[in-house]
């Protein structure tokens, strides 16, 4: 036993590196020669390592216990224990999730608000197209305000100058012209002008609901126009159909190209199409034609905030307006074109043929 004890002591010193060089060499030789000694060395090594690890963790725990003693666990527990209120628990448990949810809600509200705002704008426009009595000279109605243009119109019959401008087009060779009601509303006198001259007209029919007005040229200098090159389309136009318009956003006739972008106008207004076509103040009342030279509508407005959302009164309401004209107010029958002469022509040729039939409408107010 004495021997064992000493061997054990040597093994431990050996493993701890406490032997001198000679002792170590001697011991290693003994270990190599005696498997029993070797086994003891290995076993003790494992044991010492486990013990060291054990000691290490025990110490660590002691240290942590010391640190733990400095923590006020009771009040922390009070503060952090499950809150009776589910709401608070939910909040604690998912602060980030709640924050994300909250930002989504905020975002949704902002977008909703802006959509609502858009709707509001649309709403005002709808009122305009459906109840023309309320229409103001807003930027939505595409009447050109030429008040500021100090032209030589001072010298004309009425002694005043044109206040507003719009467009219109002939629906018969004998001087009947269609335009928007809002263009001529409240006018004291109206003149139309094409490349051949300027003529005084008389309003013979107005339809505020459909925003249509029919004018009749009452001027001796007016010669009847040749047969209309276009017809008025009775049916509806499809979305995507290519259309073009002619009008007077300036003192010269301007061509605009586009397509029907929706079957209905603003807020589902079934009286109108939505058309993707660039228009400007002055285009109101201009004809909207398809490629075959059929009038499919009358440009009557656009949405303030959306680019390229123009609205046009459907052509079938022109027919309705014509049919509604009291027969006794017609000095001569309205004879609109039966056959389109524009079919198959290129746009430039169509423009050439059309330009004499599209009029600038000049509205004079005495007050």
């Amino acid at each position, binding site marked *: 036993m004495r021997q064992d004890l000493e061997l054990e002591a040597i093994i431990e010193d050996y493993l701890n590196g406490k032997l001198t060089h000679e002792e170590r060499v001697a011991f290693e030789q003994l270990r190599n020669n005696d498997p029993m000694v070797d086994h003891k060395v290995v*076993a003790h090594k494992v044991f010492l390592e486990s*013990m*060291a690890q054990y000691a290490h*963790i025990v*110490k660590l725990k002691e240290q942590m216990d010391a640190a*733990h003693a400095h*923590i006020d666990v009771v009040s922390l527990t009070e503060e952090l224990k499950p809150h009776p209120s589910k709401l608070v*628990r939910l909040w*604690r448990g998912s602060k980030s999730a709640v924050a994300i949810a909250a930002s989504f809600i905020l975002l949704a509200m902002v977008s909703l608000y802006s959509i609502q705002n858009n709707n509001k704008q649309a709403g005002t426009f709808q009122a305009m197209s459906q109840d023309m009595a309320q229409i103001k000279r807003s930027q939505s109605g595409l009447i050109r305000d030429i008040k500021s243009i100090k032209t030589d119109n001072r010298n004309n019959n009425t002694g005043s100058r044109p206040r507003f401008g719009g467009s219109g087009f002939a629906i018969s060779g004998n001087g009947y012209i269609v335009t928007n009601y809002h263009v001529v509303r409240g006018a004291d006198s109206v003149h139309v002008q094409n490349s051949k001259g300027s003529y005084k007209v008389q309003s013979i029919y107005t339809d505020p609901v459909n925003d249509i007005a029919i004018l009749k040229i009452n001027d001796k200098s007016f010669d009847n126009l040749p047969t209309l090159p276009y017809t008025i389309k009775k049916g509806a136009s499809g979305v995507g159909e290519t259309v073009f318009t002619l009008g007077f956003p300036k003192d010269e006739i301007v061509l605009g190209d586009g397509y029907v972008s929706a079957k209905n106008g603003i807020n589902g207004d079934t009286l109108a199409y939505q058309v993707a076509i660039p228009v400007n103040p002055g285009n109101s009342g201009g004809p909207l034609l398809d490629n075959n030279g059929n009038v499919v509508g009358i440009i009557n407005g656009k949405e303030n905030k959306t680019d390229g959302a123009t609205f046009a009164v459907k052509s079938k309401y022109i027919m309705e307006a014509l049919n509604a004209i009291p027969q006794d107010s017609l000095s001569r029958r309205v004879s609109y074109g039966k056959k389109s002469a524009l079919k198959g022509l290129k746009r430039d040729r169509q423009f050439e043929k059309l330009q004499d039939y599209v009029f600038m409408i000049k509205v004079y107010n005495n007050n």
Partner: protein
Amino acid sequence: MSIKLSSSLPTDREVVLGILNNSVEALNKLYVSYFPMVLQFILNNNGDEDDAKDVYQEAIIVLYNKIKSGDFELSSKLKTYIYSVSRRIWLKKLAQHSKKTSNISDFEDVLIVEEDMEQHEQKDMQFDKMKVALESLGEPCKTIIEDFYINNQSMQEICEKFGYTNADNAKTQKYKCLQRLKKLFFQS
């Protein structure tokens, strides 16, 4: 030992360097910083403050060993690591006591720490083996062994403490105790 409880959270780098340098202060700072987080987790998942202490200390040991072993990279925040390890330990304890482990309320992001936990569980088994062996060793052997191997006292100090007449007697006593302990340790 004074600990500033109100001191702000140590940076992760500070903690890692401190632990590598065996800094007691770094460990204390680390310990105090993240205990509330684990306490909250345990309290809200069917545990009490004692469970929290056990779980948290075990998690710190895992972190400590990982840092010491040198393969610790600051790929995540220490906070997240400690939380994930604590969570994993607590889930295992809950499962052992066949309590439900679904519906865990989480308070932090969770990392996958399986590999570290496997290593830790092996070490923990060794620790428990040694602990059981020491417990069943009985006095005075347990204290002699602990004084010598854990508290690093010399045989002379142990000799005086236990009133042995000479160092040889103490050595013999220690040898006997050690033989029994090794037997217990290796047999278990």
